[in-house]
């Protein structure tokens, strides 16, 4: 069975290779029959990958979710002490499925909307490479291997932004994205090497069992600082988040979905999988800071969103991007409690955010495509009237985003805050209570701006009233194309899963909880 996991990682790469090899010749029309074939190839490969991950989930021994399954451990480069060690447990399984799902949906989405900027082959190939990198990151059980997969993601994402992004801002945004994250991962690598230098192994399972054995407190602190810094850039933790809004805003719809839905999870996943269990003393020292920064992120993200809503050139995608900063702040807060509840909450935030924000970006893309602008002031409002189903879906996603009970966004935030109410022994309880309160205010602010979006975009009085600058009289009710068949296919699963995860949180928590407890208990 362990070969299935390998196939899951390799299949997207194979698809990417096929797509690149089938690149239409120079000068030939990029979007002819070749483009169509490319789209179906992408759908086929990402679909097959999704099917396999579902099969993995089905074959996953839920009673033993705490231990690694489908493991493969082969020496890759003995001189570096690098092993090709992959496997999944309850923590990585949901993320794996989420990744495969979102990639598949992006591929499906491309059936309807071919992004402009380059050949379709290349676009889908990059998406598939990205998927392979993320899947590998979630499956890797060797520090260097983790780092490798972490890096694999960079180049495809760079090109997705730089080639298919919004003209004018994509170049600098792509650079900002890649330089920030590379700097982070380089520092993270140093942390890994420091760990290895003192423990003699890169193996995550062994290190988890060891829980800091062999490393002095000083080494643990240094290593944690390095590792957490690298991951925090990816999360992104306030104040290292500045690359995120630009990248999101500039990226094409598919890129934004993957960036928000999948890539950001690598950061929190790394913190949960590596930083906390491997370097417990470092984690204990820095947990309050992480929590504080996370909470600042929550409040800050919300405030920026509110400000953007009010500004005449507030960008819908940028608002969603900043909402991500807030949501990931909850994940950080959850992790920083170092309690099973908090970490479970963080994982749930990951899933929920992946589903909801993915949906939001899809919708934002759809709105942009249909109305021609992504500036809230220019979309024109009255989406309910112009494209009722689209408007309704956007309202649903926004409501899910504010964490309405019964939807996927709720449980994660609740668990994270619950964890903060009663953090692990040794952490400063009053501080966490204060942070809890701040996070609570953050949820209120989140609700405020999410509803603001609904009001301005879906209900809204119309263009003229919002933006007096644009004096030209626009037809007040100009119907927009509503949801099409492909859109149903691409967005439907997200809607369904948002509801399912909201109503039946145990579906996720049952898998994650044992693994989290095992992790915090030193793997025993």
């Amino acid at each position, binding site marked *: 069975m362990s070969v299935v996991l390998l196939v899951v990682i390799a299949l997207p790469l194979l698809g990417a290779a096929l797509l690149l090899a089938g690149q239409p010749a120079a000068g030939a029309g990029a979007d002819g029959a070749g483009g169509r074939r490319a789209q179906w190839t992408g759908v086929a490969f990402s679909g097959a990958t999704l099917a396999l991950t579902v099969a993995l989930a089905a074959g996953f021994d839920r009673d033993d979710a705490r231990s690694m399954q489908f493991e493969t451990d082969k020496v890759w480069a003995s001189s570096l002490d690098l092993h090709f060690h992959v496997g999944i447990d309850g923590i990585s399984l949901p993320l794996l499925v989420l990744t495969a799902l979102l990639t598949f949906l992006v591929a499906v989405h491309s059936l309807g909307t071919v992004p402009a900027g380059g050949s379709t082959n290349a676009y889908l190939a990059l998406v598939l490479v990205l998927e392979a990198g993320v899947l590998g990151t979630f499956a890797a059980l060797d520090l260097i291997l983790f780092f490798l997969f972490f890096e694999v993601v960079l180049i495809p994402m760079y090109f997705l932004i*730089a080639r298919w992004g919004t003209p004018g801002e994509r170049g600098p945004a792509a650079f900002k994205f890649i*330089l920030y994250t590379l700097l982070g991962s*380089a520092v993270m*690598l140093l942390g890994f090497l420091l760990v290895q*230098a003192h423990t003699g192994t890169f193996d995550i399972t062994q290190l988890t069992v060891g829980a800091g054995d062999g490393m002095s407190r000083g080494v643990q602190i*240094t290593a944690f600082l390095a590792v957490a810094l690298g991951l925090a850039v990816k999360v992104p933790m306030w104040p290292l988040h500045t690359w995120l809004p630009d990248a999101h805003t500039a990226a094409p719809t598919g890129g934004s979905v993957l960036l928000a839905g999948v890539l950001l999870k690598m950061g929190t996943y790394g913190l949960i999988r590596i930083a906390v269990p491997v370097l417990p003393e470092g984690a204990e020292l820095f947990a309050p800071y992480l929590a504080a920064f996370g909470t600042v992120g929550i409040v800050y993200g919300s405030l920026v969103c509110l400000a953007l809503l009010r500004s005449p050139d507030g960008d819908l995608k940028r608002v969603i991007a900043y909402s991500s900063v807030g949501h990931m702040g909850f994940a950080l807060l959850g992790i920083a409690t170092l309690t099973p509840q908090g970490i479970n909450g963080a994982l749930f935030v990951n899933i929920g955010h992946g589903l909801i924000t993915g949906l939001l970006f899809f919708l934002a893309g759809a709105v942009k495509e249909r109305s021609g602008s992504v500036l809230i002031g220019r979309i024109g409002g009255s989406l309910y009237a112009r494209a009722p189903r689209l408007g309704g879906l956007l309202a649903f996603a926004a409501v899910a985003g504010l964490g309405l009970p019964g939807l996927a966004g709720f449980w994660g935030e609740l668990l994270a805050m619950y964890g903060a109410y009663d953090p692990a022994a040794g952490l400063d309880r009053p501080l966490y209570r204060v942070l809890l309160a701040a996070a609570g205010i953050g949820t209120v602010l989140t609700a405020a701006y999410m509803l603001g979006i609904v009001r301005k975009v879906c209900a809204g009085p119309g263009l003229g009233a919002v933006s007096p600058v644009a004096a030209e009289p626009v037809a007040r009710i100009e119907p927009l194309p509503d949801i099409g068949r492909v859109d149903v296919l691409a967005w439907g699963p997200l809607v369904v899963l948002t509801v399912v995860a909201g109503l039946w949180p145990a579906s996720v928590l049952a898998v994650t909880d044992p693994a989290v407890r095992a992790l915090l208990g030193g793997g025993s």
Partner: protein
Amino acid sequence: MTVAISPQGMPTASAHDSLSLVQDIDWAAVAPPLALAVAALVVLLADLFLAGPRKVWLAWISLGGLAAALVLLLPLNDGDTRATFCAPANPTTTPGCSYVVDDFTLVLQLVLIASAAVVVLLSMPMTAPRPWADERDVDSGVPGGEYHFLLLASATGAVTLVAARDLLTLVVALETLSLPAFALVGLRRDGRGGEAALKYFLMSVAATAVLLFGISLLYGATGTVYLDRVAAALTALDPRLETVAATGAALTLAGFAFKVAAVPFHFWVPDTYRGAPVPVAAYLSVVSKTAGFGGLLLVAGIALRPYAHVWGPALAVLAALTMTVGNLVAVRVATGSGDAVRLLAWSSIAQSGYVLVPFGTAAGEGADLSERLSASVAYLAVYAVMNLGAFAVVTAVGRDRPTGLLSDYRGLLRARPAPALAMAFFLLCLAGLPPGLMGLFAKVTVFQAVVAGGTGWLAVVMAVNVVIGLYYYLVWTALLFAPPVPGAPPAAEGTPEGPGTLGAAGALRVPMPFALAIAVAFVLGVVLSVAPQIVLQVLTVPGLLG
């Protein structure tokens, strides 16, 4: 070990007629450089008697000599250390041999010879009358016979350098490496070659003089030129001589620092690379530099090891400077003039910095020093592949687009997918990002050495530099994939002025040797990315540096 050592030190002291003062030479050990030297002579003579189109044979002879040298390396790879040209044994000192073939030597010789072979491939259209050369190559006016002779002579020096274990052989090999290289740079007869050669030459001879002065002081302080004996003598040095020895060590290292283009001894590099024929620039940046690092490794790692606590921090600063300056200026070139070769020149300076990093850990605690220095060897091997690959593509493109600007590469993917993809791969290797895993592994290796050596600040500086470096490599890579500038006139032959001139398919012809060179580098790169252990095993060779 097939070394016959006469017990007599001085010829005049030989009282017994039966004793031979003539040493047996381990011919197998010296065969690779010997093959190169013989090939050089054959090229020189063949040049005299081959006329017209048959001059193309010169390149093949050159390639044949290098291939023979490669083959001759095979029997040496039996795990034994072979030493020859040894000093008379002396019970109080270490063996003292001038020429030693061990794993270190073999790895570097392999890298050097293979790199030189790739350079020969790259030079073929430039030096051969037919079938690859056309009017574009004729303009360069590089004479084939001299070129290949000089190349082989220089390669002989390089191959000998990494096997040398005494200061004397080291110096002679270094000069054998350098002197033909000056001439190679100057072979381009359009004035730029002369200027490049003159700058390179003046800087180099001054550095050689400094190096020699350092060596003379080291010799005076220790009384020997054999590296291992120098080390032994330095550990038990008369305190009055310590200043002399330290000065000597500093000057010697400074001389080598020039050779490997470490900042602040790097000024010659960009101008020289720019002015030299591109294959020669490739040669300088790979073969000459690798050999220089080989010498530095030998001197620092063996002879001056007792002074590791002194040169360690100094080289650490040098490494940090080299990386930072190299990368920053490269960024400036990428955003400024956009000259491809100049960018590669600065990038190679930055890469030198990475190679120097393990040296910087010498003063640190932790694992064995030679294990850390092995990281430099591994990096050099990987660097040779990726840098040669990049230079190969630049040579091929530069043949059609003599302006040599980054903008020439815009849309290369459309015009020539294969070289463009290869170039992207090499650039990402240099940057150290997937899919260029080879470069990534090499950098991880170096990082590992630094972390193991406990020189944290250097690791951080290098991490920052990797990020800076990424910028310009990525600019270049992005250009490869960028669509040709819309509205630019379709690139016809003879319109080098227009931007985006590579748009038209077929505008760029890649002759067979170029294609071969690129393919070799690419395949090697992919293989090393998938199976890095092939190179990285040098890390685990016990006592790589004696």
